């Protein structure tokens, strides 16, 4: 649908998979995301970097519909997250509309958030059965394919507590992938891992980035990883985009002093 853009600012590309317009998120008096305009195209791999507390995780939580923005709208795959459109005007909508829009999105969390009382396999099959209404046997097939693909063919019946952090995170990735989202969100997925387990998780994501058509938004501190897989990098600070563009530019020859300073601090760690 063509949209009237009364503000006259950057028009949202019609082919955007995710669109955020003028999105602001306040917690009390603190502005965490400040009038953000963002579009993610289908298949696009977008990396988001920035200091902690800059609001980058909040962008993902907004895109997933875990937070409701204080102002602005978010549209995913043609569905508004918290609005419906009537006679060309946007009307606030509730949880039911949000559920419709969330179908296109999946998210992997920093703390994995696997269901501890279910096996690795059940963690993947249960949403397939109850959200996509797959038959148990179909769900089992899809789940075992995916778990095998993330290198856990021998761990189907393990509980999360019996798995290492890296293994848990790979189950979490398989669990999200199984629902076949068009957009996957990765929220600092290696930050809670022991250093020697980071590689196995990054390799899985790298493989996905290179072999699937899913769009991805990746919040990460792994700069070389971001440079490797991202089509576009976004530097975020104090709730605003500081700099964005090609990873070779933003990560290798940043123009903004804030980005230069941030990358210097990270690389000298």
């Amino acid at each position, binding site marked *: 649908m063509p949209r009237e853009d009364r503000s006259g600012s950057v028009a949202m590309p019609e082919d955007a998979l995710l669109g955020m317009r003028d999105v602001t998120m306040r917690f009390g008096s603190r502005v965490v995301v400040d009038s953000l305009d963002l579009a993610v195209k289908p298949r696009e791999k977008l990396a988001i970097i920035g200091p902690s507390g800059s609001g980058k995780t909040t962008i993902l939580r907004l895109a997933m519909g875990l937070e409701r923005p204080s102002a602005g709208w978010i549209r995913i795959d043609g569905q508004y997250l918290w609005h419906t459109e009537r006679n060309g005007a946007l009307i606030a909508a509730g949880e039911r509309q949000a559920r419709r829009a969330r179908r296109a999105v999946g998210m992997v969390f920093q703390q994995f958030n696997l269901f501890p009382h279910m096996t690795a396999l059940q963690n993947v099959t249960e949403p397939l059965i109850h959200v996509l209404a797959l038959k148990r046997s179909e769900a089992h097939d899809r789940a075992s394919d995916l778990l095998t693909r993330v290198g856990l063919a021998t761990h189907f019946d393990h509980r999360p507590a019996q798995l*290492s*952090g890296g293994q848990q995170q790979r189950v979490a990735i398989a669990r999200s992938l199984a629902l076949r989202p068009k957009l996957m969100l990765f929220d600092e997925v290696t930050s809670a891992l022991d250093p020697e387990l980071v590689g196995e998780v990054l390799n899985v994501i790298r493989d996905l980035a290179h072999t699937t058509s899913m769009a991805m938004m990746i919040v990460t501190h792994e700069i070389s990883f971001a440079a490797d897989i991202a089509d576009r990098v976004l530097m975020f600070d104090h709730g605003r985009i500081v700099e964005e563009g090609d990873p070779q530019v933003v990560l290798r020859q940043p123009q903004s002093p804030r980005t230069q300073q941030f990358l210097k601090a990270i690389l000298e760690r």
Partner: protein
Amino acid sequence: MSDQSTPTLRDYLPLLFQGVPVTLELTFASIIVVIIAGFTFGLGRSSKSRFIRWPAGFAVEVLRGSSAIAQLFWAFYVLPFLGIDLSPFVAGIAVLGLNGGAYFSEVVRAAFASVPKGQTEAAVALNLSSWFRLRRIILPQALPLMVPPFGNALIDMLKFTALLSLVTIQELAYRADAIRSVLADAGPVYGLTLLIYFAISLALSAIVQRLEVVVNRWAGRTGHVQDASASPERRSSGVPRWAFGR
């Protein structure tokens, strides 16, 4: 064979033991009220809407903050004047159950609050329905935590049923007291009554232990513990070992 003129405890044993089913009935009826009231108040107090949260909090504070005996007398002697004529049984069960429920509501609230927020968020991100979230994600993690305190509540109810002797219900304590008044010696009848309460409470503990196994199995926690400690890999999970021990 006892002398006609001086009755002994033996003559009154049937009378005393007839109090046991009454006491059990009161205990089970009030624990059902405890469960219903506990979940209602507990979930009410964790509601997002203050129009639910405040009344629930008020009810809990009133029930916890005033004497159960005073409430009992009130339900038994005052409510009839207000046109609410409850049988001693119903009044007694309601007062005991609501009291126990007020305490148990804190257990319910704490158990739900102990489930990490990330569990709900992951379920939302997977687009699971709120009913599935409650039934298959949150409850299996919260319910096992409630079972041991539930055992306490059950035994509390057993002991509190003795209060109902004050409002003419002929349960165990009432009968013990009546029998004591016709016997020369109070020791044996009260001693036996203590033993009966103790035996019932042992039986209730055994039931709760069994319940714990059943709930843990339903919640998918069986095998969890042994397997977990057998696995060398779980050291590297971020979750401390004690979090899964029971």
